[in-house]
């Protein structure tokens, strides 16, 4: 019963935020159009490259590449690009300090609010992405792999969300996380496989990239959606989600302690 009470505020926050997002269809439409634009550009680039190379690049056909890009983009575009900056600003401006006064944990509530915001966006991207990939690339390369890609996509956005909060937590100490999102996004773009399948990287770099958490945020669901039945990718994602939760809660606990001791 007490557990029910403990979870209820977060469920409410998710539902309220999702309703707020749905109440702004023009915002969702803009997010959807932006997603389609990025997907069209990158899948056009890779499909052209594949056709210039005998129809295949590092084991990906043109169709597989379209599904890869559509999925990787959905995982990335569903969250605000400047999430790290927004969280950092909230810490630096003292908004987080006022949240400490509430009888509820700051980090889980913030995550819950963001989950509510990203779910409708993710749904728009998935619907648009599946339609686009089917229309431009053709039917999915493997139905089972595509089915595995669905939970993988949710895990990818979840890991990204929690990990970005951990990264933004640096604002507890340096007071300005501006610009940090640039670096984060580029790490996800290249080492996370958002712009290109990791197999395109030189061997050593690809091995390193596959050992880093960024691969769980874009590459994993995209690899599955492109027809590779590799269920172990889901286990890797669960591992990185646990790590991200542990790191972010540690960072926020330490940061909140610092605010309480020193004052905002």
């Amino acid at each position, binding site marked *: 019963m007490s557990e029910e009470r403990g979870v209820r505020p977060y469920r409410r926050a998710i539902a309220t935020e999702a309703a707020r997002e749905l109440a702004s269809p023009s*915002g969702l439409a*803009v997010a959807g159009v932006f997603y389609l634009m990025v997907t069209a550009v990158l899948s056009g680039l890779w499909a052209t490259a594949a056709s210039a190379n005998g129809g295949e690049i590092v084991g990906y056909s043109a169709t597989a590449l379209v599904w890869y890009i559509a999925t990787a983009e959905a995982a990335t575009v569903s969250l605000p690009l400047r999430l790290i900056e927004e969280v950092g600003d909230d810490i630096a401006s003292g908004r987080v300090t006022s949240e400490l006064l509430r009888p509820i944990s700051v980090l889980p509530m913030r995550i819950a609010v963001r989950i509510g915001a990203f779910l409708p966006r993710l749904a728009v991207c998935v619907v648009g992405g599946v339609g686009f990939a089917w229309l431009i690339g053709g039917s999915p390369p493997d139905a089972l792999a595509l089915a595995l890609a669905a939970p993988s996509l949710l895990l990818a956005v979840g890991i990204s969300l929690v990990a970005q909060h951990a990264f933004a937590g640096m604002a507890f100490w340096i007071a300005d996380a501006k610009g940090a999102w640039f670096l984060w996004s580029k790490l996800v*773009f290249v080492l996370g496989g958002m712009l290109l399948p990791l197999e395109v990287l030189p061997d050593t770099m690809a091995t390193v990239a596959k050992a880093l958490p960024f691969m769980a945020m874009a590459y994993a669901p995209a690899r599955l959606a492109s027809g590779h039945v590799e269920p172990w990718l889901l286990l890797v994602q669960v591992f990185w989600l646990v790590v991200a939760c542990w790191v972010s809660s540690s960072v926020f606990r330490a940061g909140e302690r610092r605010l309480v001791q020193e004052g905002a």
Partner: protein
Amino acid sequence: MRALGRTWAGAWAEVWANRRGFWFQVSVMIVNDVIWIVFWYLFFDRVGEVRGWDIDDLIILFAILTTSAGVVLGGMANVRRLSALAIDGGLDAVLTLPTATLPHLLVRRVETPSIGDLLFGIVLFVVLGDPTPTRVLVFLFGVVCAVMILLGFLVAIGSLGFFVGRNEGSDLGFHALLLFSSYPVDVFGGAVKVFLYTVVPAGFVTSVPAQLVADPDPAMTAAVAAVAAGVLAFGWFTFRTGLRRYTSGAGWTAA
């Protein structure tokens, strides 16, 4: 002109006041740009030439894009806020000044990270762009045209805020232009290519000037200059027309 120069100098002094922050943000943007170049090297290393484009052409395209975007988004940063200023009634203070409204607005704010783009673009061309005298001249011409097109387009879509109120399309148009300008236009085909030479003139921002640097062509040079002048004039006209519909926000801001 002197007033504009002083205003611009003031905007630069504002960002320069926090030098550590200035260099940090510039450095972050340069790292960001370097990562893009790394991506393109990896891409062309794996796939070779794509529809006549290789890494050398891409270097020029990227140098033109970052230099021109650095000038517009760094040196005239308010261009991205035009829509919000128009909708929120944020132009009151500017309208009382004895200077032309649009130029004053544009030079009033400098955005530090984009200065990193500007520096990166120049260095990229000098180091990897094979800067012979002819190529330098054509590169500069391409940058000037790209600046005119970016500026005209962003002013035009920002000014739509005067007409339609809430203007999410402005942000979308901005992202579309920069996104499509980041890739060789020949990657796309058919209707998309026509779209990129007309509605969102991304083809004229980077692809055509980059091709001119590699292979100068008087007719194409004249065409790019004409398009740049046309887009800039369109932006100016849209702002002037929209400004007549502006209503005060009863707020006094520094824009």
